[in-house]
C-alpha cells in the first residue's frame, strides 16, 4: 500500500474513525448525527485510488450501503463492496486550520445526516 494510503488510514484512525483496507477501498465507521439514520453506525469508505495524493488531494466519492438514499446525487459502483454504491458530493476543504481527516469526517457525517428514509 502506498505511503499516502497508509497516511489516510492513520489520520482517519487518529480522528476517531478506525480505518482498514478492504480490497480496492478503505472502510471506516461513522455514526449518523441526524436524518433518517440518526444514531446508527454506518460503515462507509473511499476508493484507495482516491487517496494516492492524500492529504494534498482529498477523496471525493463516499461509499455507502445501497440501502441509504439521497434526494439527488451521482452514483456508481466503482471499487465498492457488494451491496454498496458510491456517491459524489462536492467537497470544499479550504479551512486548513482543521486537520484534513477531521474535515473529511465531518463532511461525510454531514452527508449521511441528510439521508432520507428508505422507500418501503
Amino acid at each position, binding site marked *: 500500500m502506498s505511503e499516502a494510503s497508509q497516511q489516510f488510514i492513520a489520520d482517519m484512525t487518529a480522528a476517531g474513525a478506525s480505518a482498514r483496507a478492504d480490497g480496492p477501498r478503505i472502510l471506516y465507521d461513522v455514526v449518523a448525527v441526524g436524518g433518517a439514520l440518526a444514531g446508527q453506525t454506518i460503515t462507509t469508505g473511499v476508493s484507495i485510488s482516491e487517496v494516492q495524493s492524500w492529504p494534498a*488531494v482529498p477523496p471525493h466519492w463516499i461509499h455507502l450501503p445501497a440501502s441509504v438514499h439521497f434526494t439527488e446525487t451521482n452514483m456508481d459502483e466503482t471499487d465498492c463492496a457488494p451491496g454498496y454504491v458510491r456517491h*459524489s458530493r*462536492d467537497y470544499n476543504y*479550504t479551512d486548513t486550520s482543521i486537520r484534513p481527516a477531521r474535515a473529511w469526517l465531518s463532511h461525510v457525517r454531514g452527508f449521511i445526516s441528510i439521508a432520507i428514509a428508505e422507500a418501503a
Partner: protein
Amino acid sequence: MRYSVAMSGDTEAVMRDHLLREDGQEDVLIATYVLSTGIERTTAVIRSVILPRDGERHVHGNASFTSAYVLRAAHEARVAGHGLALLHSHPGGHGWQRLSRTDWETESDYERVARSATKMPMLGMTLGGENIAWSARFWFDRTEPTWAESVRSVSPVLAVTWNDELRPVPKITGAQERTVSSWGDRSQGRIARLRVLVVGAGSVGLDVAQRLAATGLITVGVMDYDAVERRNLDRMIGATRLDAALGRAKVDVAARLMKSAATADVIDVRRHEVSITDPVGVSIALDYDVIFSCVDRPWPRAVLNGIAYADLIPVIDGGIALTTFPDGHMRNGIWRTHTLTPGRPCMACIGQLVAGEVSLDKLGLLEDPEYIEGAGREAPSHQNVAALSASVSASLLAQFVSLVAHPGSRGAPAPLHYVLSTHTLMQSDTSCGPYCAYENATRTGDRRTPIAEHRNDWREEVEARKAKRHPLRLRILSSVEYLLQRYTNRLR
C-alpha cells in the same frame, strides 16, 4: 546534467546570519539537503541547518570544522535520509566564489565521510559576504567537484546567484535599450538567465510567453499538449487561421510568436507537448527557475501548487471568471493572480484550487453534462474575452517583475484580485493554515506527494495530431510561411 541549489528565504537567512559574523571573520556551517530531480537539472534543496555546538568549529583565521561536528551532522543526515552540505563564508567575497586550496582540501577530506554516511554526494557551498552571493559544488568523489550552475533563495523575493562560467551573462542587444534602462544591466543579466516555463499556451499563456521573450530571456519553455482550434482565435492573439486549419500544436504557435518577439540574440524556446499532470511533465518542470501557471483546471493546479513548495520553484498563477445575467448581459468579472512561494499562501488555502475537485477532474467529470446535471452543479463557465484576458497576463507579469527585480525591495505581492464591476483591486491577507498539506511539504523535493499520474489519453491525442495528413494547399502555405519566418527572424 546541470546542477543547482535551492533554499527557502528563511533557511537562507538562518545560514547567512550564522556565516556573516559581526567581527568579520570567516565561519563554517553544516546543513542537510534533499534532491529534486528534473530531466536536465538536479537540484539540492536545503532541508535543515545543523548549527555547531560550542567547540565544534574553529573561527580564527581560516575557519574550520572539527570532525566531531561533521560526524554528528552526518549521523543526523543519515537518520533523516538527507544529504550533507558543508558551508563556509568569504566575508569580503564578491560574486560566485571559487575554492581556495585549503577549502578544496577540507571539502575533499570530508567527502568520504559524507558519502559513506548518507550515500549521497557531498555538497559544498560558499557565501560571498560582499554582495550576498552563494556558490555551490557537488562532490561525487574526492578528486574534483562538479560545479553548480546557480543557487537560488526563494521567498516572495527570488534571488539567484549565477555561475557565470556555466551560464554566461547574455550580451545586451540594441533591441533591449529601454528594458535595460528600466532596471539596469545587472538585473537584466540575472533575469535574462532565468529558465521560465509557461504551462498552458492559451490566451494568457501565449501572451506571457511572448512578453518573456521580448524581455530578453534566453530560455523559455511552453508546455501544452493541446492544438489550436477555430474557437480559440478570438483570444489567442497571434494565432492565425492557418494555425487553426492545420490544428497546429499550441506550443508550436507559441514558439513561432516567441521567436519573432525575442530581443536576445539567440533564444532557446523549449516546446513541451506534454501534460503537467503526468510525471514526465513534472520532471520537465523541475528544470526551470520560475513557472507560470496558465491553466484553469484543478488537477494541473494541484500539481503546480505542490511543486511551488516542495521544490522551491516559484509558481505564478492566475485566472479570470466572468458572470452574466440571465438576459445575457455582463454582470461581473473577477481576475485573480498570486505568486506561490514560501511566505505566501498556496492556491488551496486562498480558494483558487478546490482540492476536492481534483478526483472529478481526473475522471473527466467536471465537463460531463450528465454528471453536472445529477450533481446539481453549475456548468463550468468558459466565458472569456480577449480584452480582459490581457488583464490576467498583465497582472501575472507584474508579479513576475516584483518577484525577480524586486522594485521597492518587496518582492511578489500577497494574492491580488480585481473586481471589474466595482473597480476595486484587493490584496488578500490569508495565509496557509497549520494543516495545509502543500505548505507542510515545503522542501521535500523528490519526496513530494505524488499528484501527477501516468496517463495515455493526452499521449494519444498528441500522436493522432502528428499522424494527421493535411490538404496540399495548406501544406504549401505552411512551407511558405515557415521560410518567411525563418528569414525574418535572421534579420539583425
